[in-house]
């Protein structure tokens, strides 16, 4: 028996070594970097484009190949996909770099080899996996992080490379993307990411459904009252009286954006406390209730569960929109990734999210960051530089993978009126306009994790929706719970205390001005939403010195508070 065990141990050991030795990256003569990103077929094209970009921009080595043996060594040392990309960038070398039967008659030749090979890792894009792997020292070289909330989590873990200086030097600084995304990619004035794409939500409209029910299509910009009256009329026309409602006006209302349109902010001007106890927040909760349960123009959770479709990206909403169960769906331009597959769908239209006085929408992005544990951080930065290139941006435009990171590429005909997709022409302009003129950055307090805020807000909102709290109680409790989390976070992390105290001092001065009905200096308002809202309501004045002993880091950098 012991010989059997010994044999098994030997076989396992040898197999392990064999697998290790056959790892593709071990066989590569150029450094291999991994891009942890989502499962999207477009990523392969984007990586191929990156390899071509490296060669076109001189981020490559010149290899002089004179003999057949040297050629064979070169071919053996590179992955087939990289060779394909090299051929695409150097078509004249196509026959020479054919791994199966290289044409040695072309020798000697100069071959440009990229400085690195980028590979896609879609198996580890889950947030929890990324968290565990990055603190363990095995994160991907380039990591996609969703939104500024994710960025703050990873930055607070200390696993991201500070890109500020390199971003400016290599041309992927804050000024290369949408102004509303500045707070998403910077923390305390330091840049830690660059957008792979951008997104601002709007409402997709199925005009045919409105025509079929003899209801006028919604206007591009509309108020909450207009939304409600049109929704009631539409649902009455589209559903049989007395039967279960199967057609809804909209799949989901972004109530946080509706609350903002009523002037409700999650945090105060200095992000030191929550202001969700505002009556406007309770008003928003009442609206949510009325639209879902009283008027039923939005589906309740029970209505959503009752649809038999539950598969697909972003759940079932796109399928249900295609099937005519939703007249409108909330989302971004990236919905086209699926809509283009629905041949039966007619023309699309797009309108803004209805507002209660301050039209706005969200600003979000899939952010590329560089892992501090990467063995090749300098090479990884090239990838972020590539994200600003025309080739990459055109690829995003053509594939409809949301909006290109560089807003300049949203203004030409190729974006606005893609010749192959005429039925989308009514959408692209609205999508770009939303990101450029309506989007307002999210609010991220440095004193509480964004994930905790979202969790608590949703928890209390649920308590309201199931009838355990009134709207006023829910508003008060939400603010109280977030404030409690802020106090706990400061107690847990004493390093936050000095900054918190400085901001409290500033907040007192802001409150004093507000009490007197005076305008507030623009640079005092650290909350990007409130800065935009106060600007809209003409409550800002020119910057003034803060006049407290220590500098508040964010005040030194206006980009942090940037907004549309």
């Amino acid at each position, binding site marked *: 028996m012991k010989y059997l065990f010994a044999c098994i141990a030997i076989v396992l050991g040898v197999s392990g070594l064999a697998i290790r030795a056959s790892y593709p990256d071990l066989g590569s003569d150029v450094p291999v970097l991994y891009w942890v990103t989502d499962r999207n077929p477009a990523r392969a094209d984007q990586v191929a484009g990156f390899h071509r970009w490296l060669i076109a921009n001189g981020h490559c080595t010149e290899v002089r190949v004179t003999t057949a043996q040297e050629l064979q060594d070169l071919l053996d040392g590179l992955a087939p996909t990289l060779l394909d990309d090299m051929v695409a960038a150097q078509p004249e070398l196509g026959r020479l770099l054919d791994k199966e039967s290289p044409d040695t008659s072309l020798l000697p030749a100069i071959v440009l080899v990229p400085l690195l090979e980028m590979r896609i890792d879609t198996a580890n894009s889950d947030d929890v996996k990324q968290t565990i792997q990055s603190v363990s020292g095995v994160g991907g070289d380039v990591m996609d992080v969703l939104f500024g909330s994710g960025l703050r989590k990873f930055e607070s873990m200390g696993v991201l490379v500070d890109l500020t200086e390199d971003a400016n030097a290599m041309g992927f600084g804050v000024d290369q993307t949408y102004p509303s995304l500045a707070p998403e990619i910077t923390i305390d004035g330091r840049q830690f990411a660059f957008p792979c794409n951008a997104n601002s939500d709007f409402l997709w409209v199925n005009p045919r459904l409105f025509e079929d029910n003899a209801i006028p299509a919604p206007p591009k910009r509309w108020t909450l009252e207009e939304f409600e009256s049109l929704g009631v009329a539409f649902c009455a026309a589209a559903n049989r009286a007395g039967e279960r409602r199967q057609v809804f006006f909209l799949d989901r209302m972004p109530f946080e954006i509706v609350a903002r349109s009523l002037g409700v902010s999650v945090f105060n001007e200095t992000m030191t406390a929550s202001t969700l106890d505002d009556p406007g927040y309770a008003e928003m909760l009442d609206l949510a209730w009325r639209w879902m349960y009283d008027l039923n123009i939005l589906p309740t959770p029970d209505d959503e569960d*009752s649809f038999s479709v539950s598969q697909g990206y972003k759940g079932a909403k796109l399928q249900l929109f295609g099937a005519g169960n939703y007249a409108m769906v909330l989302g971004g331009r990236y919905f086209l990734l699926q809509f283009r597959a629905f041949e039966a769908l007619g023309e699309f239209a797009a309108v803004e999210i209805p507002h209660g006085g301050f039209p706005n929408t969200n600003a979000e992005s899939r952010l590329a960051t560089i892992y501090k544990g990467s063995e090749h951080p300098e090479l990884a930065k090239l990838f972020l530089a590539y994200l600003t290139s025309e080739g990459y941006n055109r690829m995003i435009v053509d594939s409809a993978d949301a909006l290109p990171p560089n807003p300049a590429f949203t203004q030409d005909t190729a974006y606005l009126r893609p010749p192959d997709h005429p039925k989308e022409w009514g959408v692209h302009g609205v999508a770009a306009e939303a990101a450029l003129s309506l989007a307002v950055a999210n609010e991220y307090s440095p004193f509480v994790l964004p994930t905790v805020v979202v969790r608590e807000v949703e928890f209390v909102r649920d308590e309201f929706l199931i009838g355990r709290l009134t709207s006023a109680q829910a508003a008060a409790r939400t603010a109280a719970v977030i404030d409690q989390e802020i106090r706990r976070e400061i107690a847990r992390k004493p390093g936050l205390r000095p900054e918190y105290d400085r901001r409290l001092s500033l907040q007192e001065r802001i409150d004093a001005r507000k009490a007197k009905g005076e305008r507030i200096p623009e640079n005092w308002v650290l909350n990007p939403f409130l800065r935009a809202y106060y600007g809209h309501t003409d409550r800002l004045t020119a910057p003034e010195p803060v006049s407290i002993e220590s500098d508040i880091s964010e005040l030194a950098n206006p980009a942090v508070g940037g907004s549309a």
Partner: protein
Amino acid sequence: MLTGLAFLAPNIVGVLTFTVFPVVFSLTMAFTNWDLTQHNRFKPDASIEFVGTDNFEEMATAGESFSLDSKFFRFLGNTLFLMMGIPVSVAGSLFAAMLLSRDLRAGGGRRYLWLLAGAGLVAGCAVMAVLGMGGAAMVLLLTGVAGGILVGGVTLGQTFYRTLFYTPHFVAGVATFILWKKLYSKETGPINQALDPALGALASAVNTAPAPVVGALPWLAGLGMLWLLSFALGRMKRMWLDGDLGLGAAAMPLALLSVPWAVLWQAGLPGAAGWLLPIGAGGVALVHGLRAARAQDRFPGRSADGFGSAFMLATLAMTGQLICLGLVIALGRLPAMAADGLEPPGWLNNYSYAKPALMVMAFWAAMGSNNMLLYIAALTNVPPALYEAADIDGARPFDRFWHVTWPQLAPTTFFIVVMATIHGLQGGFEMARVMTEGGPAGATTTLSYFVYQEGFETGRLGFASAVAWALFLLVFVVTLFNWKFGGGYADD
């Protein structure tokens, strides 16, 4: 010696590395401020600090002070609520095992009778489909399945039924959770599809029935409560007189029996039921107490004897009384509800129904689980001579069960209860994650889900460790309790 150690070494090293070390490590971490966002290899300056019992204090705190409204206690409450289904599940497993221990194969002419019945059902489905009654898809489905089961059972007997009952256990958990989510759908789920006409008929019956008849319904449920109390007390009195139950062992079961009445008092039922039912319960308790006290022929026994039986009896009676109490409340409100028409609930999206809905699903899964197999195995070990002796003594079927089967199954029951309790305290994560994401408003968040949220969504591993160790302490105490009282019962 060395060779032996060498062979054992991989296992020992594995246990030490992957079990003992993490356990000790997490215990240590429970008293620290370990936070992934602050303490990792990329933050060499930040050190993990000992914070004493801060994490445990935070668990019990809502706002700035101790509160039973803290998330820990709320989620502990959810966990314990879901565990109330354990006695019912154990009883269900036992029932299934007893059912499946019989020879169910049809013999002789009966086989053809059953086959004919099965064929009739299938033919009925076909006729319904041909006649355009496809709208009754639920009926078709259920009838077809029933026909298939009947035919399978007739031909294969026990083996077929045992496999069928055990099926939920070897189907992947997530698949069954998704299936049940669809079953529970408010508008299109089969459960509500079946309930809807029944509730419609009930509503019209209530609306047309004379008021005194409708008004008597809650009282019937109340009488059910009283009968269950009386039954349990009567049984316990009998056990006490026979010397099978000591006073010390009776204390906790009696406390359990009083729980529904405390809940009733707390609920503050309107009208006469609010005071008549508690008075009735007091009367029942008094009568049984006086009879027990007056009895002269008590067989002597030890104070700690009989806890297991009494505990199981009291737990089942308590669960039954709570169900009756729910009926008292629901039936009391029935006329007002029926006036607007009765609607089936949105099971998973309703705060009140989400937990019971998960309990029902867990019951379905547990009934045919390993517990059933254990009971089937244990039932085969009951000596037939005991049943023969009971028959000679003129025992009725219930007496055969209560005086022969149940005591003989005691060791198995003890093992099942201990394991089910441990799993119940630790469980609930998968179904909450898949079916409800812990909602609505945390109604289905269990402690294990809370540990996951704190550990991996916010990175607070120190706090998550503290919650995990609080959970361990709970499991430990409950298991100790089981061993202390249940172990002796099983050995008797």
